[in-house]
């Protein structure tokens, strides 16, 4: 199978995304933005989509995409995690795109490919389970119900909505009501989405709908690990940088052995997280039979590494790490929130128990 290492194309992609994010979405910019009524930087999203073609990486060239795969998407997510940039990328270019691809939809996909519009998948961000969601009912050709804590809902132009049936529908933003909620991670807005006799275009039904949703959630879990990897990497790097320059007791803090050993342990775990996240991205990108295991593994391991490293980053920054003005808390909030997203590590361990025959 494909190797885990980054290809040259992936490294180039990373470089251009990083350049854009460094330029447009530094920590101070993010910090300033999250308390405005426009936490998302839609101009950045557009630039990402148009300058680097990020939005349509796994979409076929015939549909306006890059004809690459979710492996490349994962590289973009690493960078977005590193900058905790508020963009609707995960909901649109991962969740919605994966659902549409799996459902064989092409119309909306073509629009998403260029990033002119964005979409998201209408499930709670913490969704995990084997049952098809039943929050939305399809009656008389319209959809009704409320889906809570939907990621990237506030800026989405379209929603991919699972409804009782089971079936998947595409619903335009104009047909739903969105209530923003106060989120633990202020860099990633969530909203409750209510449909009241909303018009929906059905794109899959029955087993097809179940299969498409399952694929989308699996891809989401697998790729979220790349974002978490980016969060962990950057949290570790900034901590190392800080400890090299901060002097106490006449020495740089980074020369204190107890701190060095903790950073070494953190680095070891990030190293592992990288291998695990890359494996998951590769598996979903190639429809590998191991993809279910790889995705569960990724959320069981990488999500915890991100939380632990972000916690260490706050602690090792000392007082300044506890302030609002320093970006360390943004990484902590992102890490902890994503550890709940699409199932907790404990949920995914339980799933692994079934997948690899280690029952209780």
């Amino acid at each position, binding site marked *: 199978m494909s190797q885990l290492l980054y290809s040259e194309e992936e490294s180039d992609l990373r470089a251009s995304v990083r350049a854009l994010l460094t330029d447009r979405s530094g920590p101070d910019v993010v910090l300033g933005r999250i308390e405005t009524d426009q936490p998302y930087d839609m101009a950045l999203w557009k630039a990402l989509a148009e300058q680097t073609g990020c939005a349509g990486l796994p979409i076929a060239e015939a549909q306006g995409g890059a004809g690459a795969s979710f492996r490349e998407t994962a590289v973009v997510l690493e960078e977005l995690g590193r900058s905790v940039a508020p963009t609707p990328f995960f909901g649109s270019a991962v969740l919605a795109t994966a659902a549409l691809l799996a459902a064989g939809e092409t119309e909306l996909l073509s629009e998403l490919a260029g990033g002119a519009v964005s979409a998201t998948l209408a499930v709670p961000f913490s969704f995990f389970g084997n049952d098809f969601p039943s929050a939305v009912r399809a009656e008389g050709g319209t959809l009704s119900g409320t889906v809570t804590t939907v990621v990237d809902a506030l800026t989405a132009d379209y929603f991919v909505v699972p409804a009782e049936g089971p079936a998947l529908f595409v619903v335009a933003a104009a047909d739903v009501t969105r209530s923003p909620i106060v989120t633990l991670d202020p860099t990633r807005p969530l909203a409750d989405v209510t449909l009241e006799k909303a018009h929906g275009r059905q794109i899959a039904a029955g087993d097809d709908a179940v299969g498409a949703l399952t694929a989308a959630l699996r891809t989401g879990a697998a790729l979220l690990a790349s974002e978490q990897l980016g969060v962990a990497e950057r949290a570790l790097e900034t901590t190392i940088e800080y400890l090299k320059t901060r002097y106490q007791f006449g020495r740089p803090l980074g020369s*204190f052995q107890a701190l060095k050993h903790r950073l070494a342990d953190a680095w070891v775990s990030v190293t592992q997280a990288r291998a695990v996240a890359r494996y998951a991205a590769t598996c979903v990108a190639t429809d590998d039979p191991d993809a279910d295991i790889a995705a569960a593994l990724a959320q069981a391991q990488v999500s915890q590494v991100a939380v632990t490293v972000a916690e260490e980053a706050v602690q090792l920054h000392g007082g300044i790490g506890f302030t609002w003005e320093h970006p360390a808390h943004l990484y902590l909030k992102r890490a902890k929130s994503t550890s709940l997203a699409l199932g*907790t590590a404990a949920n995914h361990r339980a799933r692994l128990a079934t997948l690899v025959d280690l029952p209780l």
Partner: protein
Amino acid sequence: MSPTAPALQEQVRDFLAAHDPTGISTDEQRLEFLRARFDAGLAWVHFPSGLGGLDAARSLQTEVDEAFAAAGAPDNSPRRIGIGLGMAAPTILAFGTDEQRQRFLRPLWTGEEVWCQLFSEPGAGSDLAALGTKAVRDGEEWLINGQKVWTSLAHQARWAILVTRTDPDVPKHRGMTYFVCDMTDPGVDVRPLRQITGEAEFNEVFLSDVRLPDSYRLGEVGDGWRVAQTTLMNERVSIGGGAMPREGGAIGTLAATWREHPELRTPGTHDALLRLWVDAEAVRLTGRWLREQLAAGVPGPEGSAAKLAFAQLNQQISGLEVELAGEDGLRYDDWTMRRPSDVDFFGRTPGYRYLRAKGNSIEGGTSEILRNIISERVLGLPSEPRVDKDVPWKDLPR
């Protein structure tokens, strides 16, 4: 001769007979009662006579407090004036002149005057002795310039305990001087310091040409480090805290959530919960051990251990609480910048507790510093090679 427990109880009874607390309704009555209690030596019985005490054993205080509480007497809001009671008072007692003791201790204890602490500096961090706030003598006054940080209650305080640098040409521990700082001085500028929870419990305090009379100095010029050590030692003793029932702390909130929400339970989180329940009991029983030691007059080194363990436990519990909350864990209640006068740990969301608990291992001595202290002062392990011991403060690498 110091009074015995029965003698003290009799004094309390006599006092309460003379000062009936049941009718107290106004602030002025409350204050009058507290002043009388101070003057009767029943404020802190281990303090000297005339300074709110009776030279009694420290361990007798609890019974006195309980007797007052049982009689429905008003208290001095000990949480609000914790820094005064726990840190300023013992230092003033140990290093203050008679005039200073007479001036400061009574309104400190009654709560008429709130105190705060001006020790930490952004440039010094855990290396407190590296602090750089300058104090320069100017006749009978001192001129203070510098910046302090992590100051609770600075915006409500009348006085502060303040450590300054008076001699930059000697090694850092030797060039400090300790003062009482007048927080109403026009050179004192208090600004809220926002923290990761969104609110601002603490402040930054900018000191610009603050003038303090030499009579506000505590201890000798250059002896500030030793004075500060007294303050900090008392801080650590007081951190041990009071008796707590089982499930009295953060674990109680988590356990209640578990009991009330069977739908959240999974085998993995169950074992995690039980481990934390066990840890919480261990921490609680260790607190009991510590209090027994204090009562027996042998304060053990377990105080540092207690703070270290409490921080770790609180962080783990709140982390699991957010996890257990699942979808609700993604929510927060309020990011608005506010200035609470106290930490409302239990009235808020798991996410708040998770974030606030991160401060437990930083504030009042980081867990790393506590581990240093335990390993050297308790276990007797040798210190690391010191590169800053004999270097003049001004030449330290920064």
